[in-house]
């Protein structure tokens, strides 16, 4: 079986500078896109601990982490893995790139 993926335009690259974040909707899912000092990362907006929202939590571009606003688990945006409890399962990550000055997100 071949997985199909959809590419979504997030926003012009200039609108997501270093340290900025944006939440987009794709295929009925919310996805957080983060700019960690020039490197773009995207994770699902769902904490693996209790399925609450994740991407609007405090974002630290220096350590490239986001903190779950509900119970404080710290997620590594590069891998989707939690660095602290109470979450222990990783969240889904997505490929994100800049093409023609536009941030593009690939959702499978």
């Amino acid at each position, binding site marked *: 079986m071949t997985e199909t993926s959809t590419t979504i335009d997030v926003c012009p690259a200039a609108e997501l500078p270093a340290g900025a974040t944006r939440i987009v909707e794709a295929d009925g899912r919310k996805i957080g896109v983060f700019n960690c000092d020039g490197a773009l990362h995207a994770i699902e907006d769902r904490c693996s601990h209790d399925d609450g929202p994740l991407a609007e939590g405090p974002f630290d571009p220096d350590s490239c982490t986001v903190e779950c606003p509900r119970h404080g688990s710290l997620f590594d945006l590069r891998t989707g893995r939690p660095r602290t409890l*109470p979450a*222990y399962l990783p969240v889904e990550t997505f490929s994100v790139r800049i093409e023609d000055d536009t941030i593009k997100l690939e959702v499978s």
Partner: protein
Amino acid sequence: MATPEIAIARPDQLEGIKDSYEYGFHDSETDYAFKAKKGLNRAVVEEISDHKDEPQWMRDFRLKALEHFEARPMPKWAGGHMDGIDFQNIHYFVRASEKQGRTWDEVPDDIKNTFDKLGIPEAERKYLAGVGAQYESEVVYHQIREDLEKQGVIFKDMDTGLREHEDLVREYFSTVIPANDNKLAALNSAVWSGGSFVYVPPGVHVEMPLQAYFRINTENMGQFERTLIIADEGSFVHYIEGCTAPTYTTDSLHSAVVEIVCKPGSRVRYTTIQNWSHNVYNLVTKRAVAHERATMEWIDGNLGSKLTMKYPSIYLMGEHAHGEILSIAFAGNGQHQDAGGKCVHIAPNTTSTITSKSISKDGGRASYRGLLEVAPGATGSKSKVVCDALLLDEESRSDTYPTIRIGEDDVDVGHEATVSKIGEEQLFYLMSRGLTEEEASGMIVGGFIEPFTRELPMEYAVEMNRLIELQMEGSIG
């Protein structure tokens, strides 16, 4: 053979309890170095940080935690039991002594006398590898055996641990229990003071226990110690904590956070004998992570306090990790012991046991609240949960709130629960052997909690049995 009918002992046989709490005395506060005004706000948190001359990251951590505490409502699942706490009627930081003693002679006389009455210096001489004694907000005495220090074992109070081992503390602090984990963890994170910092190097076995003792003296006191234990690969340590407080007509609050990291192949045993006076709210968050082949054991005894809400947890992160929780709770008149434990199986072939024993008498209420979770992928995991409750009269209450979540098919999970009463036939049998009714009841209770006492070092088992006897004293009319 027919099962004998178990009748309940008559209420008039069991009613009444003597005020048997022997640690309800308090000392003078005239020589205290500092006592913060009652109440919680940003200035109080900054004042605590100033007193401790902390690094900026810890100060920022505290202030952020205060925001979390203020933003969070009281947990709904607590059923309103915590609503009686007035967070603005508490002293959040009290420094009894300017200096920490390395010998008991360096501790102020009043405080030393109190710890003498509690038997701590004597216990240290006889069978402990190290002792930390916290009085109010800070540790007033700390000592570890020289040979362990030479092997690289670190046993400090948490404030000293942060000053002397900042990198190690920063690497693990709040990774097991984040500040925003729950409302009380946020409170502790904002105002923490004292507690223990323990590091055991790879392969080192600390054969004799380390002990911490926590004493509240002031009325309307809040004690918020913070403990972090890191057992490196293949190491072993047994940490014991005890606590008491004076009896006042107004309430105090004890809200600790305990984080434990068991690295591969290590074993940590954490024993608690909680004996707060009956005016203390005891709301504690304790959690451990066990990596591959590591073993974590919580041996948790709750005798005192007005309300205890405490559920030691173990996250089994590595293959063949093992978790053990043994919890006993004794709820007497006016007490509510809401205890239990949580085991989360994350890696394959992990094993756990949760054993909960509760005794309720004179209208006391004991609850078991627990979680057993098996994550997807944790194949071959095994767990057994056993909850036994003993009700000593008609007025007392026992509740069980078990949660079991299984995300994997290939597991072996069991849950057993019993509620029993002391029967007249049991009493008659023992009394026909020459015991008084009080002795017979005490023996039945002693037998009921034997799985707990047999896990304690002998001196503590003797003390535990004595405390149970005191609780039982006067229970036969």
